C-alpha cells in the first residue's frame, strides 16, 4: 500500500547571529506498509516521526527519496496526482481543536472534502454527511454546532469523519489520542480499531505511547534522530527488542500495576540535535552497549532478523 524509499526531509535553518545549518529531520527512512496493516511509528519528540507523516502528504517539502502509494510514485506532484493523493491518503492530527475551522459548522467541515472532490451537492451531500456522523458515533443534532461547543473526544470524531469522507485507503494518524483524557482515549482507540476493520483501511499510526501502539498496531517501526532503528511485527519487537534504543524505550514505560518490573538504570542523556549529525550510528552518544571505534564511525546497515524484522545495529550484525 505504502512504500518509502530513502525518504529525506532536510530543513535549512538560519537567522540573525546564527550560522546556516541543515536540520536532518528525516534522514533516509525506508518503510513498507502492506494493505490492511496498522504500522505504529514510534519515537521520542524530535525523532522525525511527525515529519514522515507530513512528508507523505507533501505537507512539508521532500528533499530526497521516493514515496509510492498503491504502487504509484507520489514523490512529486502535479494537479492530477495531488487530487488522487488527497483522496487516497488522509491525515488526522493530534489536536482536533486546531484542526477544525472555528467559523465553520462541523457539518460544513465534514462536507468540505466532499464538495471539493465529488459532485455531491444539496440533499445528497447532507445525506452523506449524516451517514458519516453516524459512522463516527456523533448524534445528528450536532450537525449545526461549531467546534467550540464540542468536547475533545467529539472534535476528534469530527476530524475522523472528515478524513474518511472520501473513502481513503490510507489514514495517517498523528498522535490522535494524546490530547484526550484516558476514558475518552479508549473510546477513540476502540473506534479506530473497528473502523479499520470495517473500511479495510491501512494505518500509519504515529505515537510516542507504546501501550497504545501495542493495542492498535500489528507492525511497528522505531525512529531515532530521523532514522528507523528497528522495525517488525509489534509482538515480536515487544517480546524481544533487538536495538538498544528499542530496549531502553520499552523498559522506560511505567506499568499501571502495583509492582513494577525491574527496569535497570534508565537511558542517560537527551536526544542530540539533528543539526550536523554524527557520521556513525545516531544512537552512539546514549548507547549503553556501544562499540568504541566502530559505532561512532560507521552507520550500521540494516540487519534482517526474520523475514519482516530489521534492526540497524552493529551488535546484531555479528560482524564485529
Amino acid at each position, binding site marked *: 500500500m505504502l512504500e518509502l524509499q530513502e525518504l529525506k526531509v532536510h530543513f535549512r535553518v538560519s537567522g540573525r547571529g546564527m550560522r546556516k545549518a541543515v536540520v536532518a529531520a528525516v534522514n533516509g527512512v525506508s518503510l513498507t506498509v502492506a494493505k490492511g496493516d496498522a504500522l505504529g511509528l514510534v519515537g521520542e519528540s524530535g525523532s522525525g516521526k511527525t515529519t514522515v507523516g507530513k512528508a507523505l502528504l507533501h505537507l512539508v517539502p521532500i528533499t530526497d527519496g521516493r514515496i509510492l502509494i498503491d504502487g504509484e510514485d507520489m514523490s512529486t506532484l502535479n494537479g492530477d496526482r495531488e487530487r488522487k493523493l488527497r483522496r487516497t491518503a488522509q491525515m488526522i492530527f493530534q489536536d482536533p481543536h486546531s484542526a477544525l475551522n472555528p467559523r465553520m459548522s462541523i457539518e460544513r467541515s465534514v462536507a468540505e472534502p466532499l464538495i471539493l472532490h465529488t459532485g455531491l451537492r444539496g440533499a445528497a451531500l447532507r445525506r452523506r454527511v449524516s451517514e458519516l456522523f453516524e459512522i463516527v458515533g456523533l448524534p445528528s443534532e450536532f450537525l449545526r454546532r461549531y467546534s467550540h461547543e464540542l468536547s475533545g473526544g467529539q472534535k476528534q470524531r469530527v476530524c475522523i469523519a472528515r478524513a474518511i469522507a472520501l473513502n481513503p485507503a490510507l489514514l495517517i494518524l498523528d498522535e490522535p489520542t494524546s490530547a484526550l483524557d484516558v476514558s475518552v482515549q479508549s473510546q477513540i482507540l*476502540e473506534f479506530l480499531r473497528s473502523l479499520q476493520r470495517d473500511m479495510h483501511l491501512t494505518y500509519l499510526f504515529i505515537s510516542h505511547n507504546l501501550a497504545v501502539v501495542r493495542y492498535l498496531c500489528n507492525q511497528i517501526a522505531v525512529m531515532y534522530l530521523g532514522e528507523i532503528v528497528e522495525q517488525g511485527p509489534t509482538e515480536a519487537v515487544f517480546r524481544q527488542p533487538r536495538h538498544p534504543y528499542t530496549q531502553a524505550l520499552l523498559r522506560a*514505560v511505567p506499568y499501571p500495576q*502495583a509492582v513494577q518490573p525491574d527496569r535497570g538504570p534508565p537511558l542517560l542523556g537527551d536526544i542530540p540535535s539533528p543539526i550536523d549529525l554524527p557520521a556513525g550510528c545516531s544512537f552512539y552518544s546514549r548507547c549503553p552497549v556501544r562499540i568504541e571505534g566502530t559505532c561512532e564511525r560507521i552507520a550500521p546497515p540494516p540487519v534482517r532478523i526474520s523475514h519482516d524484522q530489521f534492526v540497524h545495529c552493529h551488535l546484531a550484525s555479528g560482524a564485529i
Partner: protein
Amino acid sequence: MTNAPLLSIQDFSLEFDTFDGVYKAIDHVSFDLVKGESLGIVGETGCGKSVTAKSILGLLPSPPARVRSGRILYDNEDLLQANDSRMRAIRGSDIAMIFQDPMTYLNPVFSIGVQLIDVIRAHDRHRPVADRKTRRQAREYAVEMLRKVHLPNPEHQLDSYPYQLSGGMRQRVLIAMALSGKPKILIADEPTTALDVTIQAQILDLIKELIEEFELSLVLISHDLGVVASICDRVIVMYAGQVVEDVKVKILFDHPAHPYTQGLLAAVPHPGRPDDALSGIPGSLPNLLDPPKGCRFRMRCGKAHAACEDAPSLLRLSEDQSAACWLHFEAAHA
C-alpha cells in the same frame, strides 16, 4: 513513618466566579499526607487535582477563586488563614511545587544561575541576617543544588539560558529551585507529562532519589496510572471535584473499589498486556457550573441505582482503602 499527618486537608471546597456562573471546582475534599509518604492524586482533566494542589500553596488568585469551606492544616497551622508574608515564608521553605511545563516557569531572558541564585537569596530573607549567604556562597550553593539534580557540568550551566536546555534538563533546574529552600513537602503537578518516556524515567528516578536524600513527603499529581504506580505509596482518585477513592497503591490495581476507578483502570491500555480488552467510560464529565445532585458519577456508572440520587460519603473499607460509593455501604449493612 509516624501517623500524625504532616498536611491535612479537611472538608475543603472551592469555587470560581465565571461569566457563566459559579464553577464549583472542589467539593468537600478531605485527605491527609503523612510524613515520608508519597501520595498520588489522579483523575481526568477538570477533576480538580491541580486546583487542590495550587490551593495548598495559595497560588490561586482570589477573585475569581473563592474558598467555600474547610481547612488546610500544615503543622497545625491553617494555611487558608495565613497572610501573604506568612505564605511567602512557607512557599519553598516548607512546601515547594514543580509543574508540568518547565519552560513556562523559567524566565527566558535570565540565565539559569541568575534565577536559581535569586530563589536561594529569597529564601534567605526569612532568616536572621547572620545566617544569610553571601553572593559567593549562594552561587556555590546553586552549583551544589544543580549537582544534586545531576545536571551535567553545573558550573558551566549556571550561565545557560532556558532555551539552551532540553525539557528534561529544565525540569531538573526547576527541581533544584524547588528543593533549594529545603522543603518538607514537594508538590509535583504532572512533572513528567511534557517529557519523553526515557527522560520521564530519568526524572522519576531522580525524584525517588531526592525523596530519600531530602526526607521529602511527596504529592504527585498525574493522569498516568503507571507513573503513580512507580513512585507513590497511596493514591487519591478524584472525579468532578470530589475524592471518590483513597487507596494504597498495592491494592489499587487489583481491587479498585469505586466504579470510576475501575473504569479508569479498564480504559488504559497496559503496555505489557496487549490482549486485555479496553473499555471506555461512556459519556463525559458533568458540568460543574451546575453539578448533578447525588453521586456525580451516577450518569456514567453501570451500577447506578436508586440510592445514588443521594451523595455518598467516603466509607472506610479497610485500613488501606476508602471509597465513596453506595454499593459498599449496602454491602457493609447487608
